């Protein structure tokens, strides 16, 4: 973890993996966790990610210094470039570029690579494996598996290339989004959405929703911790488990509804008239201009090479 302990708001115990909970089973034996534990783990993982990205966003690095609006627009532009590239080698080069950006933004590379590759690109790799066969992607068979009901079966060169393309593209895209979200405080990222012409009401609701996700999350954690405290032995009855989940989700809606009434009254009491105001945008600096120029140059270079290869 690259953030020094003195400047972290996320407590140590939240960042350390719990013994025996590692899904790969490297510490102790792997247990099938039940739905209560899984939901609690999911809740703490959301908390951990949010607190941790706020810590990283407060670091002094290259991407942290760039205006959020500029960063959002350039990242979306780079995402489009990554989506149009037709060569695995170019996508690989773009991935190396994201690693360099991560290093320049003081992100630990081990953490960054883990965060990106677990779990979507690896999942993608497994899912596209069958697509490398000639029955789905016809072409030159390079790894023959023999015949199947009189038809030749094997992995094709074209299938492998397609699988490589999609995995590389997914990895580059996720890296770009992770770079954006990890280096921008969430409230500034929200206000930068106005630069994309997202309606004010939408941004307001989004900001409030993000805030209350954590409030409701603690309500869920309380409910489930209370249930776990009252249980002994294995909790394996599926039907009663579903009942518990439905009842807690229903109770949560009741809480959310009551809370929304209170929030409304609080808003009116503080002078809310229906015209939301968003944070005043900060002034752009020369670094932002330099960043935009670099991004445009990189995009032009990548697209030019892409055209030359094709």
């Amino acid at each position, binding site marked *: 973890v690259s953030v020094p302990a003195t400047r972290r708001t996320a407590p140590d115990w939240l960042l350390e993996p719990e013994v025996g909970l590692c899904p790969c089973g490297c510490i102790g034996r792997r247990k*099938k966790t*039940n739905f209560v534990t899984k939901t609690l783990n*999911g*809740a703490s993982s*959301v908390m951990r*990610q*949010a607190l941790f*990205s706020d810590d990283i966003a407060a670091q002094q690095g290259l991407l942290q210094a760039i205006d959020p609006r500029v960063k959002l627009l350039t990242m979306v532009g780079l*995402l*489009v470039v*990554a989506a149009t590239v*037709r060569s695995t080698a170019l996508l690989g080069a773009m991935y190396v570029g994201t690693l360099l950006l991560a290093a320049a933004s003081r992100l630990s590379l081990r953490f960054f690579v883990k*965060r990106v590759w677990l779990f*979507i690109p690896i999942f*993608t790799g497994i899912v596209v494996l069958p*697509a490398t066969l000639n029955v*789905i*992607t016809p072409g030159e068979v390079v790894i023959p598996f023999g015949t199947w009901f009189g038809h030749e079966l094997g992995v*094709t060169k*074209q*299938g492998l*290339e397609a*699988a490589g*393309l*999609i995995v590389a*593209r*997914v990895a580059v*895209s996720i890296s770009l989004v992770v770079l954006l979200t990890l280096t921008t405080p*969430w409230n500034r*990222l929200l206000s930068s959405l106005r630069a994309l012409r997202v309606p004010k*009401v*939408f941004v307001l*609701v989004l900001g*409030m*929703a*993000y*805030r*209350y*996700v954590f409030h*409701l999350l603690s309500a869920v954690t309380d409910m489930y911790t209370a249930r776990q405290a009252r249980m002994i032995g294995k909790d*394996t009855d*599926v039907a009663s*488990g*579903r*009942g518990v*989940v*439905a009842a*807690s*989700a*229903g*109770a*949560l809606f*009741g809480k*959310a*509804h009551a809370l*929304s*009434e209170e*929030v409304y009254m609080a808003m*009116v009491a503080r002078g809310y008239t229906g015209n939301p105001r968003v944070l005043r945008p900060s002034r752009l600096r020369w670094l932002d201009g330099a960043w935009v120029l670099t991004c445009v140059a990189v995009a032009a270079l990548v697209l030019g090479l892409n055209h030359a290869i*094709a």
Partner: protein
Amino acid sequence: MHIPDGYLSPQTCAVLYGAALPFWATATRRVKRVVKNRYVPLLALGAAYCFLVMMFNVPIPDGTTAHAVGGVLVAVLLGPWAAVVAVSIALLIQALFFGDGGVLAYGANCFNMAIVMPFVGYAVYVAFARRTSLTAPRRTLAAGLGAYIGINAAALCAAIEFGLQPELFYKTDAGGHHVPLYAPFHLAQTVPAMLGAHLLVAGVVELALTAGVIAYLQRANVPVLRVNHAAVPETQLDMPAPRKLGLRGIFVGLGAMVLLVPLGLLATGTAFGEDGPGALDLKKYGLSAVPIGLAKYSNWWAHTLLPGYGYDRGGHPTIGYYVSAVAGTLLIAGVIAGAYFAVRVTRRRHARTALDAGTVK
């Protein structure tokens, strides 16, 4: 079902952003106009709730768990337009802050889960929950069914989006072979794979959670259900008497069908087995001649007034067709009216004799 970036071509993403845009615009306008300020916090909490519903692990047999999307649940609780906003915002939080679902693919994800799912599911819910009270068991079932059909409709959309990629976006290599640039599976694989998983597992989970939450609120927190059902009575006793389907409705329906008769003239070819045995393709069925019984009985009754709906008369086949239609309709109407009056007369007579005998007071 959260599609990450890289699976869909930028063109597909742009089209689906375009498809989602009018829904977002309408939803935002409706929120501003209909619901005013009070609903800003309600929508925000609805979006936060939606985010959390996706985190609830629902136990399924075999000790594993799955999670629901909650699009139809939010549509039932807050209305479909509010669900568009709430689910879209929950998806945006997931895509931007937690890397679940892509940023370019955000339009596609919203189209599937924030538009198709709540609207399809809500339509099913409204159709099945009609004329039931707020606490009726059928309302629970309707919500569950809506959730099941809604998530499968969303999965079908996602499968079509995936399946179109290798057909539309590929490059041709030196050997003349196609290399898919994005998701490599074809429609023949994506549709069965997505629908199989959703019909069997994800749909059932969605059904269980949605119906479970509605049943819980019916037991424990009816006022919350009022948010989207202001005019629905609470118990079956308070329901207004069901409206009788008058004769007018029947005549309007029948009249519309009579007007649609000319559609039959547009059709080419023959209906299966209708024009036998002359039109029978004997070779197809491995026969060398028309079976004796068929040949004998197919024209057994030839003394009809308008053979072949008046089409066989030559001359004016279209007029013959219309005359057949009108004559047939009148004949059927006459038979039904006759049966109706016969039943009424017998019933009255029966009632009178019963009254005379003193069995009915």
